[in-house]
């Protein structure tokens, strides 16, 4: 990983809100992070914490009534929020690509999978005919699908979930993207298939040196895959750390809760800890620390908005305990 220090993505103050009839849902409310080439960044949090919206914001694919209201997305030095739709489109699928949670529904049911991969190649590399077919076969082999010739002619419904996800990965990697966003890539799959897909992603990462943003609610996946981790809660980043540090010494009470709720093999505990309560409404988020209501270590100060602090080098946490 020679390029570790070269920055590919810098997100600053990202706010994505949804303007619904009931009010403004502040789904992402001030997210900052930096990603380097070849780095894998895990984003974890419960459902509703804003991690998926964050990833869609990066591609400017948030659909109505959602909108990026604030912030900068510096991709290779260019602010993605300020370029034209056409420029953005040229980046999607080429320099930044994405794979989704439900591989079976993410593929268009009426087109052959081969054609769906080739479409990407045609759009961004102008490949057509035999050339495109050839490249498509290579990609399918690369993601470990035997008999690519036959696969290309199949329709999504003829493939299993795991096979569909491999197709999605092939499609995402078709143009050697500099950034791959994987939104819960294994959640919808069987456990054994999950492991295979993770293995595949790890192997490919070594091979093509792409920066990856891995979104998941599964701490185990993070532990296996990520270099650095962002923990999100109620639309905000609450903790950022290198993965080993995070597991060894979690700082934010929410992170601690998340880790305690994770079953550990061979570790016999009386019961799994559960974080009481649910994610607060993002229409009128609570004043002060958003986690305060569920936090077992809250004190008076928690009614004020906690700032992001850096208690040690390369670690950041949004909690009054470390002030």
């Amino acid at each position, binding site marked *: 990983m020679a390029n570790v220090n070269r920055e590919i993505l810098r997100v600053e103050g990202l706010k994505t809100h949804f303007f619904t009839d009931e009010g403004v849902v502040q789904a992402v409310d001030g997210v900052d992070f930096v990603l380097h080439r070849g780095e894998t960044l895990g984003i974890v949090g419960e459902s509703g914490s804003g991690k998926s919206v964050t990833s869609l914001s990066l*591609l400017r*694919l948030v*659909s*109505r009534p959602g909108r990026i209201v604030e912030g900068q997305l510096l991709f290779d030095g260019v602010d993605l929020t300020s370029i034209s*739709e056409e420029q953005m*489109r*040229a*980046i*999607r*699928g*080429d320099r930044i*690509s*994405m794979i*989704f949670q*439900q591989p079976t*529904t*993410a*593929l*268009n*049911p*009426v087109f052959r999978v081969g054609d769906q991969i080739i*479409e*990407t190649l045609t*759009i*961004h590399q102008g490949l057509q005919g035999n050339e495109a077919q050839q490249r498509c076969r290579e990609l399918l082999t690369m993601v470990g699908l035997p008999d690519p010739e036959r696969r290309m002619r199949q*329709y999504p*419904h003829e493939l299993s979930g795991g096979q569909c996800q491999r197709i*999605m990965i092939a*499609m995402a990697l078709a143009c050697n993207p500099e950034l791959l966003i994987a939104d819960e890539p294994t959640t919808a799959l069987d456990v054994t298939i999950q492991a295979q897909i993770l293995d595949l992603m790890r192997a490919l990462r070594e091979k093509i040196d792409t920066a990856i943003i891995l979104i998941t609610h599964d701490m185990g996946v993070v532990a296996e895959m990520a270099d650095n981790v962002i923990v999100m809660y109620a639309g905000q980043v609450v903790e950022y750390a290198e993965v080993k540090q995070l597991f060894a010494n979690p700082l934010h009470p929410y992170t601690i809760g998340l880790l305690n709720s994770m079953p550990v093999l061979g570790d016999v505990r009386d019961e799994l800890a559960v974080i009481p309560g649910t994610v607060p409404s993002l229409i009128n988020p609570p004043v002060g620390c958003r986690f305060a209501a569920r936090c077992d270590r809250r004190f008076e100060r928690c009614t004020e908005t906690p700032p992001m602090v850096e208690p040690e080098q390369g670690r950041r946490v949004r909690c009054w305990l470390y002030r």
Partner: protein
Amino acid sequence: MTTFLIRRFVQMFFVTVVAAFLSFILLYLAPGGPIDELRGAQRQNDGMSRVDQTDVQRVRERFELDFYLPFRFSRWLIGWPSGPIFGAIGADWQVGCSIPGQVRLVYPDGRVEIIEEGCEVPLTLASIEDRRVSNGVFFGDFGLSQTILRDRPVMTLIMSRLPYTLSLMGTSILLSILIAVPIGIYSAVRQYSRFDYTMTTIAFIGSSLPSFVFGIFAILIFSILAQRAGLPYLPSGNASGARDWVMPYFGRIEAGSLVDRGLRFIMPVGVLTFINIAGWSRFIRASMLEVLQQDYVRTARAKGVKERMVIIKHALRNALIPFITLLAGVLAALFGGALITEAVFNWPGLGRLFIDALGRHDYNVVMALLFVNVVLLMIGILIADILYTIVDPRIRLS
């Protein structure tokens, strides 16, 4: 595929026969049948309420009322029985009743009523040998018209009206698709825009209102009021005029000329098209909105597909799949015509013919039109099912 087709054909066959049989029974059980009409006509002519027995006999024969119902139906359907089998077998088998027995009932209060009971002269296979019989609708022979075009083949009558219905329905269906699909797509893509609001409101009103009200309003505005105001107006009623007429600012228009016909064509086509567009654009919009939320549309965008292609290629292809169901009825509509619209504009198509035939008890015509309609509807549904498998690879015929 083959087994599917065979099963479907058998199914279609049964549904058609059952539907035809039920309609047949209904029509011929009708109390207001031909004999009543005859009695009524006589009463009007000479004030006499007694109808000659031979008159009744003649009418019964003419409308085949002397056959028992199942035989009457099978003669209509397949032209059988038409005489003794192989010319010899069953010559004396009874298939109906020529002259029913009559019983005089004398009530205690002195009232006398004659009711039919039993059979005096049976109708046997031998006695029907000389009767004219159609080849049966299954072999394309719909028999003879009974009242509208006396003793002329129903087929002639239908063929003379078919061009009017085909041109009316064909034009309006084609126009409707060409206009409704883009409106539906655009409304969905620009959901909640001013265009969408306007279109959904118009479509909502259009699809909830009856066509005869639209037709009458159209005639009121474009024919009557325009004419009264001395403006150029659209003539209403019939497919071509009987007399030459003068259009303000344009001059004389010859009856039956292309211009005359064209002008008379506008309103019925317009009304039908408007109503179709209203319904179909709503349908396409709903279907498109559903599809635009699907994951694969997001995937297409994430791949960098141009927005126009996302909509035309990835979304529309899927959104049009359910539209096939609506189009299944188009074939039947093409030949069935639009009953109400044709009635409002006095358009001489098959729909108008159906209403006339019903009103004048020309049941051979009614049954023919009904039969053709049911068969075409069945074929339409079959075509739709086959189209589904072509358009949607997930669907298999089995």
